[in-house]
Every structure is written in structure tokens, then in C-alpha cells.
């Protein structure tokens, strides 16, 4: 079949860059989780590892979030996104070596950045803590990779375009835009006063909403119909969902500034935009959930689909919760508590990361032309991740909400009901222990994932070696693969 040989050709062109992105993504994921674990332990045992300046809370907390967002998030997004772009463009990647260069520099930048944070060169801006010697490389490599994504799209085979291409292309395009804008307004030509806070929230909100989210949604739009062999329910709504997401997300970050020293209209527009995000969320929910509605047995049986469906459900829930949290009356309670951290974990881990896991399970066998060596490790990975992240979300939302209500409770005479601040802080300790436990569970799952990947690489290397011997015997050279990936 022509399509079979074509897709295997595409997979071969993506093999090296794909492996670079995917393997470094996993390495950063493990690094970030170790940092997150240490951070979580420190929040209940402040003396833990406190004698080394590099390992104090401020350093490793920022190192953790940057490893996960740029190290894991970026690499996973590039690897999976570019592969899907190439697959749907039905042409191999032109000059994949450029992607390798972009990927190598991206990882150098993240390494420099996280290293700089650890040794104390960090800035004070949330999710932009990397020092300036890393950010320039990061920005340039993201442009290079973005341009290559555009080329892959531009030189696709003429014919229909699918919604995933739109989402992934948008993610590749939006990152350099928001990143460079934020860098300029915060560090190179710093804006004055509260504009910096406005810029920071604009960036942080868009990093999740215009970078990680489109990539995760694009992957889900690709994998769900493909694996189920059934078109997306109400597909004609998908474009409306995409454009309305693009329209509303950019404004939504301002809702985090409730009560801050910014003009009221800015916050109001942010809240309206956050609530209006329900429009794309609902469309995406219709498309994703109604497609899998009556085939949960197959979702449960397929290693990729389980993760993807968990991720799409999390996207809907996280967006609904995020929308409620943006309202003034709710925000007054949840602001500055672990509720906000819970909501970003809901997006980053329960939604984006889970979908990326599913995409890895689908993509790796195809670019390596080799199947997963252990189903048990996949099971272990799924259940540890699913239970772990659920536990973490309960802990963060629960503790934050209790903390927020106790801090803001006012008695009949305008006096605080819970006067003792330290007591309120202490009330969160059991919840924070639960968070530590949840990260432990998550890291067990990740170790299973990493072990499975390593095992697969060994198998692939062995079969490749055998294949080369076979190929040497085979005059045609290209037929050494037993059977190529059909789908």
C-alpha cells in the first residue's frame, strides 16, 4: 500500500529528531519531578536540605517548574507536534538535521537556565526565572523549530487540512511570540510599575493556554479518531473552537489580578474572557467526549487512548474550575493559596502531560518500528499517574480552599474569625503530606515509563543491528523491516 510506505518514510525522517525530543523530554520530566518532590518535602519539613544555598526552597521550586514547563513540556510538544504535522502533511520532514540543531540548542538553553536558577542567577518573575544567558538561546531555538514546523506544514501534500495541524502550528507560532514579548517587557526594556505584573500574568496564562493546551488538544484530536477508527463527533465545530480559544485565552490572565493595583476594567475583561473560554471548552468537550462516549472498553484496552482520554477529561474539568476561580467572589478566597497551584497542575499534569504520555505510547513504536516490551509497566505508569495526580489535585484544591476561607472569614464585628495565622498555616500540613505522597506515586509511574522506554531502545537497537545484517544481505536494502507501520 502506498500510504504504508509513505508513513514509514515520514516516521524515518522523524526518527532522530523525534528520539532527541522524546528522550530529553523524559529526562527533564524525571528531573522536574525530583525537584517537585524536594519542594513538597520542604514545605512540611523546612529544615530538610536547608543548609545548602543551591537547594533552598526558592531555587528548587523554580528549577522544578522550569524543568517541567520548558524541559518536559517543550520537548514533548516539539517531538509529538512535529511528528503529527509531518504525518498529516503526508510528507517526510525536509532536512530533519535542522530540527536536531534546534532541539540540541533548546536543551542547552533549558540546561543553562535550570542550572542558572540553581546557582542563584534567577530572576524574580514567575515561570520566567531563567537568567538572560539562557533565554536568548531558548527564544532563538524556539523560532528555528517553529520555522521548521511551518515548513513542514507549507510543503505538505496538497489536499485536506485537519484541525490538529492548526492547533500544533499555532502552538509553535505562539510560543516565540509570547516568550519574546514577555522577555522584552520584563527584562530588556522593562515596562514600569504594574504593567510588569500584567505582563507576567499575560505570559503565564498564555504559556498554558496558547502553548501547552493547543499542543495537547491537537494531539488528542489526532489520536482519538485515529485509534478508534471513527470521525470526531461534530467536527464542523472544531474550527470555531480553535479560533474562539485563540481569541479568549489571551485576555484571561488578567482575572488573576483581582484586588490588585490595576484598573478595574482590565480585571473585568479578564474575567469575562475566562468565562467566555467555556465556549471553546464546550466545543472541545463535545468533540472529544462524545467521540469516545460509547467505546470505553476500547479506551480502557488501548495504552495510548487511556492517557489521552484522561487528559481530555482533565482539560474540561480544569477549564471549568479555572473559569469559576476567575470570578471575583471566588478569587478573593482562592488567590494566593494552593488552589491556584492546583489549577495549574490540573492543566500541566492532568491534561497536557497525560495526553503527551498517550502520544508517546503511540509515536515511539512507530518511529522505532518496535513494540512496547512490557504491558505491565504501561499499566503501572497509567494507574500511578492517574491516582497520583488525582490525589495531588484533591490535596492542593482542598488545602487551598480551607486556607482561603479561614483567612478571609470575618466575624460580626469585622474581626477575623481565625485570628491565629500560624494555626491556619498548620492546618494545611496534612494536605501537604498528601501532596508529597502523590508526587512519590507519580514518580513511581514515571520510573516505569522510563524503564519501558529504555527497554524498548535496547530492543530496537538489537533489531536494528540484526536488520542491518539482513540489509547487507538484501540487495534492495530498504526491505529489512519486517512490516511497516500501517496507521
Amino acid at each position, binding site marked *: 500500500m502506498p500510504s504504508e510506505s509513505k508513513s514509514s518514510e515520514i516516521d524515518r525522517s522523524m526518527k532522530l529528531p523525534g528520539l532527541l525530543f522524546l528522550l530529553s523530554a523524559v529526562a527533564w520530566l524525571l528531573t522536574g519531578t525530583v525537584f517537585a518532590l524536594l519542594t513538597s518535602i520542604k514545605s512540611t519539613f523546612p529544615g530538610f536540605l536547608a543548609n545548602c544555598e543551591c537547594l533552598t526552597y526558592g531555587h528548587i521550586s523554580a528549577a522544578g517548574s522550569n524543568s517541567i514547563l520548558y524541559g518536559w513540556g517543550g520537548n514533548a510538544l516539539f517531538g509529538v507536534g512535529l511528528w503529527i504535522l509531518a504525518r498529516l502533511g503526508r510528507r517526510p520532514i525536509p532536512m530533519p538535521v535542522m530540527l536536531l540543531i534546534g532541539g540540541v540548542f533548546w536543551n542547552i538553553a533549558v540546561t543553562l537556565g535550570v542550572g542558572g536558577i540553581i546557582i542563584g542567577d534567577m530572576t524574580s518573575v514567575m515561570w520566567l526565572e531563567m537568567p538572560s544567558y539562557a533565554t536568548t538561546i531558548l527564544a532563538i531555538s524556539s523560532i528555528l523549530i517553529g520555522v521548521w514546523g511551518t515548513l513542514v506544514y507549507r510543503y505538505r501534500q496538497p489536499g*485536506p487540512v485537519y484541525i490538529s495541524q492548526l492547533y500544533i502550528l499555532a502552538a509553535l507560532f505562539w510560543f516565540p511570540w509570547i516568550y519574546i514579548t514577555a522577555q522584552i517587557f520584563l527584562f530588556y526594556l522593562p515596562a514600569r510599575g504594574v504593567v510588569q505584573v500584567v505582563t507576567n500574568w499575560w505570559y503565564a496564562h498564555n504559556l498554558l493556554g496558547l502553548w501547552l493546551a493547543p499542543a495537547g488538544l491537537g494531539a488528542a484530536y489526532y489520536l482519538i479518531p485515529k485509534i478508534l477508527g471513527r470521525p470526531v463527533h461534530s467536527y464542523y465545530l472544531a474550527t470555531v473552537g480553535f479560533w474562539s480559544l485563540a481569541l479568549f485565552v489571551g485576555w484571561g490572565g488578567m482575572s488573576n489580578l483581582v484586588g490588585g493595583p490595576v*484598573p478595574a476594567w482590565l480585571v473585568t475583561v479578564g474575567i469575562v474572557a475566562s468565562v467566555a473560554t467555556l465556549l471553546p471548552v464546550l466545543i472541545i468537550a463535545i468533540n472529544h467526549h462524545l467521540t469516545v462516549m460509547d467505546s470505553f472498553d476500547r479506551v480502557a484496552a488501548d495504552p495510548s487512548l487511556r492517557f489521552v482520554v484522561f487528559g481530555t477529561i482533565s482539560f474540561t474539568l480544569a477549564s471549568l474550575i479555572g473559569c469559576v476561580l476567575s470570578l471575583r467572589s471566588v478569587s478573593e478566597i482562592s488567590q494566593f493559596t494552593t488552589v491556584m497551584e492546583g489549577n495549574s497542575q490540573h492543566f500541566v499534569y492532568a491534561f497536557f502531560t497525560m495526553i503527551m504520555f498517550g502520544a508517546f505510547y503511540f509515536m515511539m513504536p512507530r518511529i522505532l518500528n518496535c513494540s512496547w516490551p512490557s504491558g505491565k509497566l504501561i499499566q503501572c505508569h497509567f494507574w500511578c499517574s492517574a491516582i497520583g495526580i488525582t490525589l495531588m489535585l484533591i490535596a492542593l484544591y482542598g488545602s487551598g480552599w480551607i486556607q482561603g476561607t479561614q483567612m478571609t472569614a470575618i466575624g460580626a464585628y469585622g474581626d477575623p474569625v481565625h485570628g491565629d495565622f500560624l494555626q491556619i498555616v498548620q492546618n494545611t500540613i496534612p494536605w501537604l503530606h498528601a501532596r508529597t505522597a502523590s508526587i512519590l506515586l507519580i514518580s513511581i509511574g514515571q520510573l516505569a515509563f522510563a524503564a519501558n522506554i529504555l527497554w524498548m531502545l535496547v530492543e530496537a537497537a538489537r533489531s536494528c543491528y540484526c536488520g542491518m545484517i539482513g540489509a547487507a544481505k538484501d540487495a534492495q536494502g530498504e526491505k529489512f523491516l519486517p512490516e511497516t507501520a*500501517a496507521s
Partner: protein
Amino acid sequence: MSDTKPTDSNQSSELAGKSRMTDDTLLETHTRTFAKAEGNGEGNLSIPIIATAVFTLLFVFGGIYHSRYSADYDPMVFNPEGAPASLGPAAEGGGIEVKLDGEKLYKRNCVACHQADGQGLPGAFPPLVGSAWVRGEPDRMVAIMLNGLSGSIEVAGNTYNSIMTPFSALLDDDEIAAIATYVRSNPDWGNNADRVSTEKVTELRSAHERGNAWKAEEILELFPLDQ
């Protein structure tokens, strides 16, 4: 390779082979759905009724919330429930009353002679604590501060003989008012006279402009001590 079901095998898995879409099918199927929906209305264009209701509600909410809390995009409204913030009288050019620190000015200008505790030095500099010269109408004290005083002076039964330098060229009216207020109303020194306004100092400055220092008798003639 031949593990149980969850293992994703792309080689010879019947499940995969049968039900999965190739990329070509994926693209074509969805394009067809789209074309059908956009076409002559025969396709399934209907948005679920609940979704339509939710979309309508969203827009209604957005409009109402927006007009209720956007404060007409006034850059000076920070609290949507409250009135516009003001930049304060200083920025708006109004007369702002700067509160000068009388204690600080006293320490800078007066302690060398009258001492930090206001007791003065026996024989030379009279005390300000519990002094009849300080109490009562402020005119007497302010006049002395402006023009200085030389020669002997009797305070609380003791005689002092020295010179007080004039401060009219050194201090502004509001600074003199601040020092006088601090001295006159300092409870630690047993004084609780009224505060002295800047206008009062201005008035006295123009009324008693002179080139030389007062004598104690001149002062007592103009502003006799309260009994």
C-alpha cells in the same frame, strides 16, 4: 513482543489493523463531514440544544458583567464597587498641608542651648519646660524666635544672661510654627498650649520686622506674661 492486549504493537495486531484509520482516511473523512455540514443543509449542522443555550447564556453573562464592572474603561477606577481613585491633592495642584516634624526641627536648631530635655543651662539659657514665656498667646515666643533676644531675662525666678540668635532668615514660617507647636504642646515638658499656625508666624514676621534682637523688657511690654 507478544505481550497482552495493552501492548501497542504496530506489527500484525489485528485490533489495530482493522479499526484504526490511516492518515489519509482521517483527513478525507473529516473533510467530507465538513463539506457536508457546510453544504446544502442536509448535513448534521445542528449544535446540541444545550450547547446553544449555554452559548447564549455565556454571551448574556459577558455583556452584563462587562457593562456592570468595567467602569467605562476609566483608568482611575481600581475597585469596581467604589468611586474613582484620586491622585491626591499634591498631584492635582491643591494646597497640601505638609506635616513638618517639630521635634526633628527642634533637635536640629534648638538643643545646643535649650538642651534636648528643654531645661536650658543655668545662668545662660532659660528653660522651656513649664515656662510662662512659652504658655499663653504664641506671639511672644514666635517674636523671640524670629528676631532673637539679648541681655538678661528672668524665667521662673531665675535670671539668665546670654544671646539668642534670630531665626527669621534661617527658618520658614511653617518650620517656626512646627517648632513652636512642638515646644508649646509637649506634654513631657508640662506644656499644653494651642498649636501655632503658619499664618500666625507670617503675620508676626511682617509686624515685627527689625534689625536687632529684642530686649526682655520690650517683649514684656508688647506681650505681657499671663499671671
